[in-house]
């Protein structure tokens, strides 16, 4: 059970990064995550949606209705300029934190 290890901040970071490549709908984003994580991240697909709602609320992304590949109506999300700014600062934060944790994991015993 590794689900809990996926921090909320990381999920938002991943979504921001995926949307940087172009707007996408929820299903599309979840498939991207699956593809990239090779099932390491056993995240519930649905937990994507609260994260998206939170990000809309904060103004990082915005949504509009469009038509998906199989001709179904789908909500597309895209980065705002605020989101673009957030992505780079979040990425820096993430890297700093990952490095700090790596330090502890490597050195705590010594």
């Amino acid at each position, binding site marked *: 059970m590794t689900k809990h290890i996926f921090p909320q901040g990381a999920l938002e970071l991943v979504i921001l990064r995926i949307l940087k490549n172009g707007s996408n*709908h*929820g*299903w599309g984003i*979840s498939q991207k995550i699956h593809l990239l994580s090779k099932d390491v991240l056993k995240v*519930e*697909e*649905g*937990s994507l*949606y*609260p994260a998206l*709602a*939170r990000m*809309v*609320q*904060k*103004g990082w992304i915005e949504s509009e209705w469009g038509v*998906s590949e*199989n001709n*179904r*109506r*789908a*909500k597309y999300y895209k980065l705002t300029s*605020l989101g673009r700014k957030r992505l780079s600062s979040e990425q820096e934060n993430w890297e700093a934190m990952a490095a700090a944790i790596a330090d502890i994991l490597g050195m705590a015993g010594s």
Partner: protein
Amino acid sequence: MELIHYIRKSFGNLFQRRRLNEEMTEEMEHHLSMSIDRYEQEGMSPDEARRAAMRDFGGVGKLQEEVRDAWGTLVVMDLIRDSRYALRLLCKSKIFTLATVLILGLCIAGNAIVFSILHSILGPPSYPDPDQVVEIYNSYPGTGLDRMSSNIAQYLDYSENTSVFEQLSLVDETTVNLSSALGTVRGTGLRVTKEYFDMFRTRPLVGRFFVDEDFDHNDNSSLILTEAYWRNHFAGSSDVVGETLVFHGKPFTIIGVAPQAASAHFGALSFFQAWTWDVQRTEFYKERRHRNYTNLWGRLKAGVTVDQAKAQIDALDQRYVQQVSQEQRDSLNRQKHETKLETFQQTRQYRYGASLYLLQGSVLLVLLIGCINILNLQLTRGAGRSTEYAMRKSLGASRLALFRQVLIESGLLSLGSCLLGLLAGWWGLSLVNQFLLPDLWSGLSSIELSATSVWRVLFLSIGIALLLGVFSIVPVLKEGLSISIRESSRKTTASRSMVNFRSFLVSSQLALSLILLIGSGLLLQSFFNALNRDSGFDARDVKTASLELSWNYSSREKVSQFYSRLKTSLRSLPGIESAALATKLPSLEGEGYQNWSIFPGKSELDAMAGSNSSNIVFVSEGYFEALKIPLLEGRLFTAADTENPTRNVVVDRNFAEHFFPGQSPIGQQVYDERDRKSEYACTIIGVVENVSHNGLDRGDGLSATSGRYPLLYYPLNFNYTPREFSFLVRSKRSFSELLDLARENIKDLDPQLPLFLAGELDQMVDESLNDRRAFMLLISILGAMALLLSGIGVYGTLSYDVSQRVKEIGIRVAIGASRTLILKKILSQGFRKAMVGIAVGLMGAWILSDRLSDFLFQVSPLDPIAYIGVSLFLLAVAFIASYAPARKATLVDPIEALRSE
């Protein structure tokens, strides 16, 4: 940024919950259907595929809740629920709510108005980098002349020999008879040098600005209109270029229109003229560097500070001083001459700052008094509410929840008062614009409720309401909530410290009011002093108007011919007792008044030091008769003195006493500054009584040192034939009737001559006090507000006291205390509070009185009448405010009071 987005979004979502819900469902279904599709393609049965997809997705219900959480609507709904509750409570205590909103709202309106006035008068002017534009003026503190203008010599010197200015421009305000197809009117404009428009960094709205060719001295007929004049008279048409306007009969061609920023330093301007002068004039002024008739403005180069510029100017002034004669040098040193630089904002600050800050101080004082009232109200209400709080607490509301409740309540109150305040402020400002603006700040077109002041007011009211809310709940929370639930709210006896605190509030309120009232009392006294001052002349039944002859009257003969024709024509009107001409009317502002004359052996510069100078005015025969100025000695001018100049002059009593103490001035000789030779001496033929010349509310001293200033009357036509002058007639006939007749007659003399400054002299003199009147009125309104508020404060506190002590009073009555005793006791309570307040207030007024001295006239800032009178008045108000509650106390029925136990 993110927070703002979040809050906005949350409120927006509130109204779209249904749509959001539908979309969320649709979106999730889309996801599931995509997932199901894929599983089916992998070969699962539809049922299996659906189950697998649902498993991947997770708990739909829980996830939907999470999404809804993210919309932020729950917090907003909580807020709305609490607000509704607070609103219900506020509606229940109507009087409290109404009083609070009214008091705070009105105080806030006052502040909004004063903020806006302050902002539009003392705020930066509208052109770019206003801090780089400075006025350069001369100051002679040694003679009390702190602010004189500048001159051509300084303009030339500084233009050639400094490196700190991007532009320097000489500016001269001029008023002319402006003729167009619509008739002839008076118009004010500026004569400017070439650099003027660049200095303000403006571009022409239409056409062009002046170029070198426009400054040809023999043919400078180019004219630039101001934006205001262009919009009013040419409807903003771009065809205006090439049109002609006639000044004093001479045609000028319009070449362009200058935007408003170019007129920012002046009141209502109509035009700009290219200003040139000939070589003789340059030479003339080079020799007379301290004849200051024009304004000098300059824009500092970017990065140059005022101090740097001043250093260069000081060096040039120093160089000049080294070149002049010893006599002039000594004189300049005695006068402590200094050239000063000042931005427009500083000038305004200097001119209006003191009165505006006084106004702001007063309005803040009223706000403070109002706040004390509201705090008092809150405390009364809070004491009554402790049961409610206790109840809610015992039902499980946390201290934080109670606190939040109070905050929301206060927030609502402040919102209400803010709305009222802005509305009243907006309305008040339109009144200010309509009635006070022309009198107090004539240079401004209108004052708007500025955005900055709206924000300031908003913050102010919210801050106050929150502070007061917190103040009101703290004692309740402290007093222990559990006890009060058992007692009935009625009996909650306020603790000793609470009673003391409230007495303190009332006393301080009275103290603050007293300060404000003494201020307005002193201003009121000054105003009546000025109004009732013996002006020395009789303005009743005197009608006057001014006119200015065109340049067609090119010689002295032509002008003086017009004088006599006008006199004859006026005197021929029916019902005229006397008629005369003069260059200036007493007590009114006018041209060519503050001149000086030189008497034997003194230099021009010494005359400025005050001891050997006199004001001069040119008058025709009949002037003293028309104004009923009494003759003390000798004789008055006759027609012979003014028609064929005789070198006879009349002086006033000040002059006689100053220059010829202890002897009769009749037959004595005096010399004028321009003809300092004995053969041009004039002979004094008469002495008249002093009149107030500078204005009713001003001393007649030009300089601070002399106090009194002598006045010399020259016969009009003597060696000076001004083209601009006034006529006055004494007649019992109505003004309009007379004016029409005079107009007709003047039209016969010259068809293109507009009359201006026309009116009844007594009215005009009265109106000359309008600035003082307006200021006094403003402060008095604030004083009245303060008085009303503190009256309410005294009444409220005592009523509350009485209502709290019903039982005690009942017992007293039961054991035999007479009603009179009770009445006395309550009254003496109010009296004590008032006395403490008055004592403190008197002290405060005494400390602050200095601030007011500049605004007073013939009354000391420590005038005992004002202090004692206002104190007694306030005492009376406190007495009246205490009487009603005291009376109520005597009506307490002991049996009722004890039964309610």
